[in-house]
């Protein structure tokens, strides 16, 4: 292994370019005056667009002594992550200006976090994994607390940081145990060692469970979910939107790679953990959301539930299951972007509102907005023929194909419970008497664009699902041949 290999640079070109451009943008931001916030923000979007293009045209292979891997799976997931980041950035720009929170650090931090996520997705050893994880997490902590003048925002950032540090500790402890028993941090080598007898050693299992717990924290799966409602509610809404979209996708991708890669030989062991976590997440996501009155909190629980459904596909531990997870996360990201776009439009008399009851009467006042929100809610509830239905269908199919009947049954039943609170929002919009009709008309074209795109994709997924399904299939085959 030489110190600098040109081939490594080619394989990791998107990440390298993103890092360089982010630093350049930071430099630009620092030397220029604050009025240039909008320029920085749009440049950041452009950087993400370039990164996305590089990812799409990227080379597959390993780099940096097998610490970094680029394959069909990483390409697909990175594209989802980059698109999600870009969407959340587009949604945030005008909003932050209006809220007088337009700090130039915001776009740059998003870029760094995205870089961290891309590294997570491509990680092929415990070391690079941890680096990616931390590179992602640190900007997120800052982003959560970006409104330093707001108690709720700082509280959210602090909570997230403390608990995130705890999860990092768990991860490191688990990783050291695994390293101690296998003698390797490389995923490929670990996979070879963990075949057969070694996988049942208590030390290995403990290490694996600790690693799993840390990653479950990142996707806010039960019982490592408790930060999510508080942080979602406390953080500024664009940050919440970002939290809900990109890091979740990246963390699920990482979890999938770790479980199907180094720990594949311990499938018997981790499958049970995933089943329990998945069931608990679906149950809690369904039940706890019922009593919520704050829409951001509601979406936090909804996100917990969605992670549960995605894990159903992972629990199947098959190529079809991984494909279902990928499709589910794609649809989830699209739906979340749309839903948060609506939340960002909830403004009355120049003041942001977050209560579900504020949506009352929207059906009459702003029929188009109400329609878009209804489509998104029905899709999240899994009503055919919207995209959300297919996401659920594929994960349940994968679970049933592997004989996980109880899990699929719990999933179906909890989705009935979850349907209640999604459809309640529709009911509130169309049937409840408004306290004060309608929201302020939004001038934000970015928001409108994201909402329109998301609604359109959700509605017409059924017409052309093939591109998504085919790419997801190829991505899944890269992990489980």
């Amino acid at each position, binding site marked *: 292994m030489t110190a600098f290999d040109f081939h490594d640079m080619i394989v990791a070109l998107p990440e390298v370019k993103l890092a360089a451009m982010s630093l350049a943008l930071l430099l630009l931001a620092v030397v220029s005056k604050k009025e240039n916030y909008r320029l920085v923000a749009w440049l950041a979007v452009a950087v993400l667009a370039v990164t996305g293009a590089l990812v799409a045209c990227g080379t597959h292979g390993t780099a940096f002594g097998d610490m970094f891997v680029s394959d069909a799976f990483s390409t697909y997931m990175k594209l989802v992550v980059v698109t999600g980041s870009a969407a959340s950035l587009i949604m945030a720009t005008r909003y932050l200006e209006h809220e007088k929170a337009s700090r130039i650090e915001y776009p740059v931090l998003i870029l760094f976090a995205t870089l961290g996520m891309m590294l997570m997705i491509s990680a092929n050893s415990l070391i690079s994994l941890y680096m990616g994880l931390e590179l992602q997490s640190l900007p997120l902590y800052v982003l959560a607390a970006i409104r330093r003048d707001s108690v709720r925002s700082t509280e959210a950032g*602090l*909570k997230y940081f*403390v*608990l995130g540090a*705890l*999860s990092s500790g*768990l991860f490191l402890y688990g990783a050291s145990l695994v390293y101690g028993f296998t003698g390797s941090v490389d995923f490929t080598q670990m996979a070879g060692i963990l075949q057969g007898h070694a996988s*049942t*050693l*208590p030390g290995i*299992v*403990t290490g694996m*469970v*600790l690693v*799993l*717990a840390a990653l479950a*924290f990142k996707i806010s799966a039960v*019982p*490592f979910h*408790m*930060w999510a*409602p*508080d942080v979602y509610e406390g953080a500024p809404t664009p940050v919440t939107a970002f939290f809900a979209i990109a890091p979740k996708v990246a963390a699920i991708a990482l979890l999938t790679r770790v479980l199907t890669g180094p720990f594949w030989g311990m499938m018997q*062991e981790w499958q049970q*953990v995933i089943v*329990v976590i998945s069931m608990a997440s679906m149950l*809690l996501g*369904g*039940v*706890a*959301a*019922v*009593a*919520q009155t704050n829409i951001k909190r509601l979406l936090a629980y909804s996100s917990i539930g969605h992670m549960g459904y995605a894990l159903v596909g992972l629990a199947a531990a098959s190529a079809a299951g991984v494909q279902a997870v990928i499709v589910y996360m794609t649809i989830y990201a699209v739906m979340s972007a749309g839903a948060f776009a609506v939340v960002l439009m909830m403004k009355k008399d120049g003041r942001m509102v977050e209560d579900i009851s504020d949506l009352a009467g929207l059906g009459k006042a702003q029929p188009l907005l109400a329609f878009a929100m209804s489509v998104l809610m029905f899709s999240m509830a899994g009503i055919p023929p919207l995209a959300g239905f297919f996401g659920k269908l594929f994960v349940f199919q994968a679970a049933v194909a592997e004989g996980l009947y109880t899990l699929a049954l719990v999933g179906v039943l909890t989705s009935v*419970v979850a349907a*209640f609170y999604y459809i309640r929002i529709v009911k509130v919009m169309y049937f409840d008497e408004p306290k004060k009709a309608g929201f302020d008309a939004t001038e934000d074209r970015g928001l409108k664009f994201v909402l329109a795109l998301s609604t359109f994709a959700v509605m017409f997924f059924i017409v052309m699902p093939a591109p998504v399904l085919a790419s997801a299939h190829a991505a899944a085959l890269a992990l489980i041949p």
Partner: protein
Amino acid sequence: MHLQLETVAVFAPLLGGAIAGLFGKKIGDKAANFVTCTLMLASAGSAIALFYDILLKHDPRTVQLFTWISSGALNVSWALRFDQLATVMVAVVTVVSTCVHFYSIGYMAHDKARARFTAYLSLFTFAMLMLVTADNLVQLFFGWEGVGLMSYLLIGFWNEKESANSAAIKAFVMNRIGDFGLALGLMATFFLFHSLDFKDIFAHAAEMQNATIMFLGHGFGALNLICALLFVGAMGKSAQLGLHTWLPDAMEGPTPVSALIHAATMVTAGVFMVARMSPLYEYAVDVRMFITIMGGLTAFIAATIAITQFDIKRVIAYSTMSQLGYMFFALGVSAYSAAIFHLFTHAFFKALLFLGSGSVIHAMGGEQDMRKMGGLYKKIPHTYVMMWIGSLALAGIPLFAGYYSKDMILEADFARMGHVAHFAWVLGVAAAFLTAFYSWRLIFMTFHGKPRADKHTMDHVHESPPVMLVPLYVLATGATFGGWAFRKFFVGRMRFKFWGKSLFVLKGDNVISMAEHIPSWAGHAPAVVGVTGILVAFWLYMKATKVPGKIVKAFKPVHSLLFNKWYFDEIYHALGVVPAFVVGRILWKTGDGKIIDGLGPDGVARVVAKGSRETSKVETGYVYHYAFAMLLGVVAFITAYIFCVQR
């Protein structure tokens, strides 16, 4: 499908019903009446032409329309089977229905929903025609249910009257019991024959006479089982004893409905169905024995009830039930042609009687209680004459239609050897006496004696308009000459050619031929008791008018039994309705409300809401609680694994 007589006969009423029903409000009542009546005339004209063509020129045929169901072994098509039996029925149904359509123009002149009424009548006619021209059991079932539905709608036509609604529901429920039997019979038929087409069933009937079907753990003779189940259906539709209670209540409907549906046509569907299935019933000896007994009992018991009733329509309703009993015991002794002959003549004179009574009710301004009538014959002479003709035919007085058919039934019954047939014969003769008696009781109470209505009503009594009287004349012609003119075809020397292969009788069962050799006293008995009945009625209600009251007092228990219709309604109420309500209430309040709703929707909702509150409480906001939960989760997972691995 080009225009044929057959399709016109069957589908013209459907067209009329559809036009009147869908566009009745737009085109108005008069136009609706005009359309339906014209199309009914076309239908009846075609039917009479077919009658001539098929029955007198002996040319049965089947018109294939199109395939209905094709699924595995089950193939059902829409087809119009115009054989001799069906053609007789089509002629009867269309002619009587046309009369009733025209009559209704006058009778319903003051009603609010005339278009709806006439649409129902036409649709009923269509359903009945589908029933009688069915080529397979499924189509028959379609028609069967169709007439049931229209009957329900027409009984409850005056839906602002609560009694009409409950009568409609009662008719529907009682028929449902019968239909259940019919449906089971249908399934059993398919099970045995793997086909529901009549031609397949009839072709293989003889091979199946020793087949058995396992049912409720017993092996039953397959044909006996099928025929018994089908007969349950016939009992419901044709108001045989046990499932008859709906028929008298059905008189809540407008009188033309009673005439068309509950006298002339629909209630004879059971008789028709058994005759249609004669190739099966011939091999089901036990069931035919049962039919004979049921028919005899129905004829007699209905007649005994009729002599005590005061509602003019109820008297005729019970008389209908009684006549249906005659038809059934004719079927029971294999005298299918005699049963259909009686069905044919009965349709005319019973429709005549009903429409005549409708004319009386119309004249009296809606009064149906005979105790409030009397002395009407001078005011409504035409109606009076019509009622006489109808009654003469009903009582079986020689030369009138009913004489030939009823006589034939009783002779065939007598000719049949065995206790069962003779038991039915005795009941039949007794019923004949009672029939004559209650018919003239009706005439004397309604038309003779002193007027018992108040002066105001009597002043307004008026003869019905021509549009109501002309149908009466048509029916009266049938009631007078129908028996005499068609005797030789239906049951006389021409009968074999007339019926062709549409009725099937085993060699040893040819009771119509045997009937020619019965002793003369038995042959004359029905007419003699009929005349006696008239004389007794004359004596009791014209001469010694005090005597009926004394008889009632002397035989109080017997009278109560008869007057209360043998307490069938009360028994059913106690055994069926009350327990059903009790069970229903338990299932509703406890079963559905407490258990299903309680554990199901309500309970789950409660648990979810509670769970939601509890989980929200866990979200305390304290970081150390959250961290504790995470560590707890990790410890739980690891502990579980350590134990698993050690094992």
